[in-house]
């Protein structure tokens, strides 16, 4: 059962990330920084924060025995957001020597995700 929930949440999260990425690139083909994955990571972190605040009232250290957490927390929001693409896009900016863009992309992705997660968590608590 656990594996089915993880798989379903993960599949839905990854497909949503892909489709949002496609839509974004169609509308804004030349963003200043790689914004599609930035937006995905920010919304996904906000979603997980909202979920944690609403369901747990605190950030859980371990909620792996709860099926909804596997489906939504680890599954959907976990797979909707991504770290590997963030790494690749950051490396690409550094390789092209776009240092200002790299710092902006890095800061918005990391501090933005943490900050917006906290906002979501506080709001729904």
């Amino acid at each position: 059962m656990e594996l089915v929930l993880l798989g379903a949440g993960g599949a839905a999260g990854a497909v949503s990330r892909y489709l949002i990425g496609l839509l974004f690139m169609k509308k804004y083909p030349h963003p200043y920084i790689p914004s599609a994955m930035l937006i995905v990571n920010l919304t996904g972190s906000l979603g997980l924060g909202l979920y944690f605040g609403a369901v747990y009232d605190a950030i859980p250290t371990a909620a792996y025995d709860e099926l909804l957490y596997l489906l939504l927390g680890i599954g959907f929001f976990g797979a909707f957001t991504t770290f590997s693409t963030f790494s690749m896009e950051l490396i690409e900016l550094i390789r092209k020597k776009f240092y200002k863009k790299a710092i902006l992309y890095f800061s918005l992705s990391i501090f933005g995700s943490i900050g917006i997660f906290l906002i979501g968590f506080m709001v729904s608590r």
Partner: protein
Amino acid sequence: MIYKNIIAIAIGGALGTIGRGLLNMHSLWIGLPIATVIENIVGSFLLGLFTGWLIHKRTKDWVKTGIGVGFCGGFTTMSTLAADTLLLYMDSSLLHSFVYLFVSLFAGITLGFIGLILGSKWGESEVKRKVVNH
């Protein structure tokens, strides 16, 4: 075309997420959220390797998206990283939180870069081998 990609991403994303979930569940005894650190580092390395390989080699679109967007994307995560960073700060200390974030970022980006270089060499050597054989 896009449907093939979507199916490949769903399968890759499901597998990556199941792998991540299992690693998380089986590392709870450690008491520190170390699994996500490892997943993000390994996933970045794998995506680097694949991206580097693709510089020289061609493959079907659904294979690319299934492995890259699906598996590597689903195996790594940003939302749990954000949650873990704050959890460590609240439950443990600012230092632990900082170390967690620093190791994730430094090792993830470095290994991603190493993967990219290795993957590119791997792809290049495959192309050369093909040229020699013909």
